[in-house]
Every structure is written in structure tokens, then in C-alpha cells.
């Protein structure tokens, strides 16, 4: 990967990061969309799709309600894709084990996203005060500008999160990947599926449906029986 690739990835990171709160909320910020998007920009959307699949369900049940800030799964997805593609070109490693390793190292770093987003929202407190002052003085254009300036703070937060995850994650990965990749390859498919299943369980635990366990058990058993007996 060359510098231009990292710049393109940064651009995508900002774009999808803004979709989380500040802009539109078309859900291009979901890992299943953001990761293939950055993968596509960097020339390998399938790696992004694999990253997105592993991460999509993990924090899906954490609702962005009011002042609650869920871990930044968007930048985790973007950064894990960038890390996987950079490791691919730097060490010649490839395949699902590498993707799993990148995702595993990126997930804990998603906490940084919460910190940066909190800072962005705190910065916006000042914008809101200034905007209110302009509004009360009848300068509506400037009040609107104060509002739009908030996009910049969210953009900086997204970029900072992606950068920190990629830098820290890559630093650790470049050191330990050659040692761990064998074990990850050994665990293989079970590791990949277990990540998705943990995400599914986390979602099931937070979805709060009456008879949820019965519905899940019936669907699980029915499907497995059909697949087994067909």
C-alpha cells in the first residue's frame, strides 16, 4: 500500500464516520457497508466484506440513543480492513486467518472511538453556546455556520479514531502476527464463526423480545434439522 491508498482510506473513514451521527445516517457507517467500501477503494472489497461480517452484529444491539456513545465499530471495521490489506502487501500474508487477526486487534481499540466522539460532542457544546448567542442577536447565518462547524469536529474524531486504531493495531500486528497466524489458521473456521455467533448472541441478549428464547430455539433447531436431514 502506498501513501495515496492511506489517504483514500482516511477519506472513506471520515465519510462513513460522519454517517454515524453528524450526517444523514444512511447506515453506510455499519461495518457490513463501511468495510467493503474501504476495501473496494483499496482494490479488494472481499477482504472488507469478511471484516464487515465479523463485526456487524457485535455492537448492533447498542443503540445510539441520546447521550449514549457505543464503541466505534465503523472505524474498527475501516481500520481492520486497512490493516489486513497493508499486512497482505507487507508480509505476504492473506486469507481469513489474517482478517480474523486484524479484527481481533482492532476490536479493543474501538474504545478510542468513544473517547474521541465524546471530545467532539464536548467541543460542540461551545459551538452550541456561540450559535445560541448569534441566534439571539439575530445573526441567523452565523448561527447556521456554527451548526455546520460541528461536522468538522465529528470528522476529526473519526479520522483520529481510524488513525489510532491503524497505528496501534499495525504496530502490535507487525510484531506478533508471524507468531499468532499459525494458531489462528489452526483454529480457522471455528474462530471465524465463533466471532459471528458471539455477535448474534450479543444481539439476541439485547433485542428484548417476549418469547425471544423460544423463537430463537425453534428457528435454530428447525433450520439445523432441515439442513441435517435434507
Amino acid at each position: 500500500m502506498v501513501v495515496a491508498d492511506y489517504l483514500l482510506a482516511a477519506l472513506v473513514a471520515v465519510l462513513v464516520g460522519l454517517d454515524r451521527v453528524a450526517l444523514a445516517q444512511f447506515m453506510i457507517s455499519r461495518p457490513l457497508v463501511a468495510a467493503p467500501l474501504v476495501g473496494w477503494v483499496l482494490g479488494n472489497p472481499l477482504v472488507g466484506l469478511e471484516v464487515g461480517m465479523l463485526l456487524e452484529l457485535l455492537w448492533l444491539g447498542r443503540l445510539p440513543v441520546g447521550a449514549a456513545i457505543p464503541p466505534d465499530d465503523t472505524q474498527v471495521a475501516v481500520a481492520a480492513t486497512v490493516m489486513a490489506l497493508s499486512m497482505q502487501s507487507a508480509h505476504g500474508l492473506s486469507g481469513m486467518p489474517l482478517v480474523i487477526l486484524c479484527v481481533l486487534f482492532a476490536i479493543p481499540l474501538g474504545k478510542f472511538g468513544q473517547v474521541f466522539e465524546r471530545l467532539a460532542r464536548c467541543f460542540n457544546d461551545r459551538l452550541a453556546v456561540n450559535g445560541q448567542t448569534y441566534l439571539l442577536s439575530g445573526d441567523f447565518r452565523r448561527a447556521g455556520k456554527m451548526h455546520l462547524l460541528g461536522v468538522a469536529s465529528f470528522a476529526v474524531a473519526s479520522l483520529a479514531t481510524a488513525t489510532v486504531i491503524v497505528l496501534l493495531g499495525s504496530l502490535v500486528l507487525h510484531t506478533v502476527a508471524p507468531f499468532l497466524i499459525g494458531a489462528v489458521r489452526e483454529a480457522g473456521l471455528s474462530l471465524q464463526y465463533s466471532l459471528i455467533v458471539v455477535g448474534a448472541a450479543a444481539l439476541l441478549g439485547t433485542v428484548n423480545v417476549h418469547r425471544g428464547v423460544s423463537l430463537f430455539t425453534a428457528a435454530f433447531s428447525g433450520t439445523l434439522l432441515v439442513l441435517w436431514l435434507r
Partner: protein
Amino acid sequence: MKVRRLPWPVFLSMFCRSFLLQASWNFERLQNLGFFYLVLPGLRSIYGTSLTAETCARYGEYFNTHPYFAPLVAGTTLRIEQERLAGGDTPVDVETYKATVMAPFAAMGDAFFWGGLRPLAAIVAMLIALQGSLWAPVVFLALFNLPHLIFRASGLLFGYFLELRAIDMVQRCRLPDLAIRLKESTTVLLGVLCAYLSYNGCEHQAISAAWGFVVLPVVLLFAWLAHKGVSSLFMVLLTTTSLLLLALVF
């Protein structure tokens, strides 16, 4: 006195601005500045050059609702503004209306869009993604955004044209009931997804698919842990560490 309808370009401008509602989201007053930014074209159209800071101050107060419901609230508040300016008698003023509806609308929107529609669209897309198809993100975006965009656009128009009757319309949509149905569908599809993964895992290990049933209590245990507040991060670390250790030992 008859109220003059707002010009269509104003509605279009407000619709576009609704995508920036949360641009300056802040802890102190949440979406206040965003809501003012959203209704500004409407206020300018209603008051023209006589738009005062006093009028706009009504929109600088604390405001927080679901972002997709904001156009609906904006449409109704502008209609109240027009009615009041025309000397009509409205049962509530702008501040009271906003304060009354924002929390219930937020709860409905969170339950329907975040808690119902989004997980369902994601699970459907996941089932497609497991086949290695790049259509998965496209399907997810289409499933989610079709209702989302229809709701945003129609919310603005219904809010404006139906005024306070828009609340009845929202009630008639029975969004909380729909959200429950969506969540139930999500739960069923989660079962299908987990069963499919278990079956594939068994097939890959060349063992009987009956072993796939072992996954069921594990998923239910993790779901219970998640329900009790155990973080996903902890569960991921626990699972992967166990599997990696098993891989290293055997």
C-alpha cells in the same frame, strides 16, 4: 384567515437540511441548533424580513428526538407558526408542542428504526454476505433506507399538512407494534443464521450435524450474559482465547 402554503422549494430545502440535524450534537442542548437549522428556510418563508431573534429563540431551546422524526416535528411547528401569525387559535404553541412530542417520538423511532429495522436488515444482509456476495451491503442499504427516506419525506409533509393530526397518524402507524414484529423476525433469522453456521462448521470438521446442537446452549448462555450487561468485547476475548488455546494444545 387562510394560511398560504409554503413553497415546494422550501420543503425540499428543509428535507435536505434534515440530513444535517445532528451536525452540532452537543451534551448541553443536544439537537437544538440542528433543529433551528432545519426549520430556518420555513421560518424565512413565513416571516420574510420580519423574522426576529425572539421567534428564532423558540428553536434554540433544548431539543432531542429521533433524527428521522425531526422533519415531522418541524413540519407541524411551522404550521403552528403560520396559524398563529394569521391570528388563528391553535391548541398549543411551538414550545409546548416540541416539548410534548420529542420524547415519545424519540422512543418510537429508537425502537422501530434502531431496534427493529436496522438489526433485521443487517441479519438479511449477513445471510447474503455468508455466501460471499458483495450484494450484501447493497441489500442492507436498500432494506433500511427505503422506509427511512419515505418516512423522512412523508413526515415533513404530513407534519405540515395534517398539523396536530399528524400525531394521530403516527399513532395509527402502530410503530411500537411493528417494532416488536421486526424484533421477532430478527430473532428468528438469528436462529437461522446460527444454525447455518453450526451446520457449516460441522461439515467442515467432517462430523455429524447433530453436534451443531451444542452451539445452541452456548449462544443462549452468551445471550444471557449480554442481557446481564457483560460486554461483547469480554465475550469475544473469552471465546477467541479459548479457541486459540485449544488450537495450540491440540
